[in-house]
């Protein structure tokens, strides 16, 4: 990682309220040049709101942020020139061809014609769409559209690229491809990236630094490896109808580091799981408790999230759906 320690983005106490709902709550972080920074959290956690403020689409209620050294409140135009953005929802004109979408973007960013002619085919090639430049976007698949949006976001050579849920709704193969593109871009062009995601594996695989965000607050922030190491040991996950009894039973063992109950699952953090798993099964059997399934794994970012919030991201999603609806309503009122 070529990071010369100049922050590409610096955020201090950024807050956004929608009436009495605090969507982003006093968030601070900084991203070094050349890093891939991930905001990981469930829907409605405030990821998109954060990105919207940093890209000057949305005004912050309080706090400040510098993007490429420019203030998001005082230097909006400079901020906009410094960034490329791939929105969560599609933002292409389907009635235009891929090339025309790129060309439109180039004109908006005042890129001279000669340069546009040179770079657009190059970028289309970079994302594997060189054959489809003249096709209307409405004939494109979801993955192709995403790739086109990434290519478009790069046309004006931004220093920083924002990716809001870049692989949402894509099939695994396309996701893998996109991850490769993103990593290659980061490496070859040294573009700083900030991406939001609610996919654990995406954050784990792509990001140099992950900030876990929940209900508008950053809970913890570090390299994915450090985050997982901070939990340490192994995880045993037990699915059962009697999960609460199993939890109290397991908690009595001295070698259990921590034990969380969520949604019919007991997740146990311990050292040397292979050694203790039999003991757990035996004692639950003895107490007449029924185990539906059991698995052992190394801690993942999901476990990190669970550790800090007591919930998994998936559970969070169901409960935050109402919050999201509220969110939309707020936007409308505003």
């Amino acid at each position, binding site marked *: 990682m070529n990071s010369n320690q100049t922050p590409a983005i610096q955020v201090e106490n950024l807050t956004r309220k929608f009436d009495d709902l605090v969507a982003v709550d006093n968030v601070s972080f900084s991203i070094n040049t050349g890093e891939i920074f991930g905001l990981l959290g469930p829907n409605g956690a405030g990821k998109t709101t954060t990105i919207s403020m940093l890209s000057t*689409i949305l005004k912050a209620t309080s706090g400040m942020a510098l993007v490429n050294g420019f203030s998001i409140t005082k230097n909006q135009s400079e901020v906009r020139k410094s960034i490329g953005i791939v929105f969560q929802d599609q*933002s*292409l004109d389907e009635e235009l061809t891929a090339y025309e979408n790129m060309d*439109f973007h180039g004109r*908006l960013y005042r890129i001279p014609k000669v340069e546009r002619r040179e770079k657009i085919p190059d970028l289309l090639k970079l994302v594997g769409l060189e054959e489809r430049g003249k096709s209307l976007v409405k004939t494109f698949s979801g993955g192709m559209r995403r790739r086109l949006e990434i290519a*478009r976001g790069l046309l004006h050579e931004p220093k920083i690229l924002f990716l809001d849920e870049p692989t949402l709704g894509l099939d695994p193969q396309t996701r893998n491809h996109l991850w490769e593109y993103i990593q290659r871009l980061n490496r070859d062009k040294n573009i700083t990236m900030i991406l939001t995601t609610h996919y654990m594996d995406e954050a784990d695989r792509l990001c140099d630094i992950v900030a876990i965000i929940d209900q508008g607050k950053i809970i913890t922030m570090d390299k994915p490896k450090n985050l997982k190491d901070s939990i340490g040991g192994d995880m045993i996950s037990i699915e059962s109808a009697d999960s609460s009894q199993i939890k109290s039973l397991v908690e009595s063992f001295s070698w259990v580091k921590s034990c969380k109950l969520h949604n019919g699952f007991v997740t146990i953090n311990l050292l040397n799981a292979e050694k203790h798993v039999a003991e757990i099964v035996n004692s639950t059997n003895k107490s007449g408790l029924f185990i539906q399934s059991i698995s052992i794994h190394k801690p993942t970012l999901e476990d990190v999230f669970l550790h800090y919030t007591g919930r998994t991201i998936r559970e969070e999603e169901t409960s935050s759906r109402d919050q999201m609806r509220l969110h939309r309503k707020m936007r409308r009122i505003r």
Partner: protein
Amino acid sequence: MDIVYTIWLRNVKRYLRSKSRIIGSLGMPLFFLLTLGFGLNSVVSVPRFSQGYTGFIIPGIIAMSVLFSSIFAGIQIIWDKQFGFLKETLVAPVSRLEIMIGQTLGGATTAFIQGFILLVLSLLFGLILARISGFLIAFGFMLLIGLSFTALGVAIASKMEDMHGFQLIMNFLIFPIFGLSGAIFPIDSLPGWLKAITMFDPLTYGVEGIRYGLLGVSHINPLLSLVVLGGFTIAMIILGAELFRKISI
């Protein structure tokens, strides 16, 4: 200027590409022209207008087609909002005024083309031009109608979340504007109170202006028409720009 041109270009490209839209929006004006024109031509005669009732309503129908196309072009911003494309434009380092002006000019252009096609078709239906310079006068008024009502469409679209209110706007704004404009009846023969209402309809001045250009005769002095419609256009552009500036996505 580059930015205005870019937005304009996108609108015109999209328009030229959608053949169904071009043909589709000719349907209603042509229908009016044929049924009213041929249906009433032999029973209605308008004082001072030598070209019969068909000749009389041709300018009105042209104005109608420009009106509908331009409002529609302005309201398209709602689709850009819903399909996300507006974000792409709003996050670029350009001013909203440039975007709004580009959108208005683009919409006015497509509406003008729509009116122009109808004008050419009218020549086939027996419109006889009083003089060639009249063409240019008619063009001028068609452009003003296009600009003002695209701007109004942008203003409405800036306030609307989705297309649900579209029907409301069609029925309670656009149709009354068309119906009260004297497009299909001579305003001079209206009872006083109704005539007063038509005088508040900006389209009346557009119709009268086009009528003066194409037929050489009109109820309202063409200079007055120009001043009123011109003023309305400026007001609408200011309103549209102001509301578009505040748009949130």
